[in-house]
């Protein structure tokens, strides 16, 4: 029995693919170097097992995942959105092929206001008559329509530091971008849901069919089905305005508004009926 053979078997025993044999046991008892090697294996096993931390998911993650997967395809949506979804699916395949051959895209930054930092599933940008793949690095401009398909996700970083995360089946129109003049960033959420993180130095207005959310230094979620919009504020505060009235929702509060009705008085806590779910989460800076 050589040290080499003994160590090979010791490693296999540690990996549970072999059983310690008598000769190796005897060798280890007589060879201090191999005994130290066996101890080292044991230490490695223990340290590996304890090295990985456990990360608790956000409290509302399961809820959001369930919503993203099972959100009913709203009957209220007009057939035009189904056409959009089909167009997105087809365009995504074509553009994915193009993207493979052209690599990461970097648009010439004429009138650009933000960058797609992550896109998966079906995500496209409709710019005039063009349909562009929502690939990483793609610049977005005022007038763009951002669309995610039923399995799509997209994350957008605006030049003022704001972050938008588009959920599946979402359509957002970019009406005005950060131009340095102090005018608010204006977006129009036409369908689906998004999370927005807006820094204190910027003002963002998100228009929906049943009202407009205006925020500064806030993190919130919006979801709309075309008739009703729900806004959940995670941090900061947001004003929700429509032609019938306005309310201010603070951290961990949510409000709902239907077309033609004033926004509901903001409620704390139980917000399971909206996209964000219950509770507030720690603020995370926009890292990209």
């Amino acid at each position: 029995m050589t040290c080499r053979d003994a160590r090979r078997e010791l490693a296999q025993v540690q990996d549970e693919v072999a059983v310690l044999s008598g000769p190796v046991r005897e060798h280890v008892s007589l060879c201090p170097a191999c005994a130290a090697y066996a101890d080292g294996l044991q230490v490695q096993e223990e340290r590996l097992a304890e090295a990985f931390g456990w990360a608790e998911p956000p409290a509302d993650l399961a809820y959001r995942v369930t919503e993203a997967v099972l959100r009913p395809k709203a009957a209220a949506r007009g057939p035009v959105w189904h056409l959009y979804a089909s167009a997105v699916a087809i365009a995504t395949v074509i553009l994915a092929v193009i993207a493979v051959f052209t690599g990461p895209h970097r648009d010439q930054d004429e009138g650009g206001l933000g960058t797609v930092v992550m896109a998966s599933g079906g995500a496209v940008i409709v710019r005039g008559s063009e349909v562009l793949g929502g690939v990483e690095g793609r610049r977005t401009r005022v007038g763009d329509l951002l669309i995610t398909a039923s399995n799509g996700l997209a994350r957008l970083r605006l030049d003022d530091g704001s972050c938008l995360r588009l959920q599946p089946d979402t359509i957002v129109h970019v009406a005005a971008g950060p131009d340095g003049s102090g005018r608010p960033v204006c977006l129009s959420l036409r369908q689906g849901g998004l999370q927005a993180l807006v820094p204190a130095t910027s003002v963002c207005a998100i228009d929906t069919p049943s009202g407009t959310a205006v925020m500064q230094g806030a993190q919130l979620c919006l979801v709309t089905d075309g008739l009703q919009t729900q806004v959940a504020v995670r941090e900061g505060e947001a004003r929700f305005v429509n032609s019938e009235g306005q309310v201010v929702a603070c951290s961990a509060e949510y409000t709902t508004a239907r077309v033609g009705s004033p926004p509901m008085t903001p409620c704390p806590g139980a917000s399971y009926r909206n996209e964000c779910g219950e509770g507030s989460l720690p603020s995370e800076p926009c890292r990209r």
Partner: protein
Amino acid sequence: MAERSDAELLRRTCEGDADAFAELVARHTARVYRFARTAVADPDDAEDVTQETFIEAFRYARRFGGTGSAIPWLLGIAANRCRTLRRWLRRRPQSLETLMEGEWPATDPTAGNETPDAEAHLDIRRAVADLPASYRVPVIMRYQEGLSYAEIAEALGVEPNAASMRVHRAKNMLRKRLRHLWSPE
């Protein structure tokens, strides 16, 4: 009432029972998220991977052929999503090293990174993160998720021998790189 098995929940999902899938999501979101968080480091990316994993699981629920826990199957999907994501990360100007710094969860929720072993743990996680994907993922499955070699093999679509061999080789690589950590005290 006895808890329904994952296989039962997925079977009912295929029959259109949305509540069954919601139960599966509630049961396994934390583990899928934790796996993704280790594999890609960034919490936002981990959330996206978790969401995409369940979207894919819902679409392909019929493909689940197991009778026990769906965790190996879900982690296999998550591993594929992480691999795709890491391709994006590599293309970004931001280095993986930057992502690793400060992004890792504490090893104990009641303690910060000031624990005596924190530096060693960080070294180990860095070394694991530097492993090729074919070795890194099985190591995370084995040591973080506690999967057996059979379950790792199921997740990765390989033979159990191949799974144990990958872990074995990964540990050899780690042993060489982190020789100072493995010496018994």
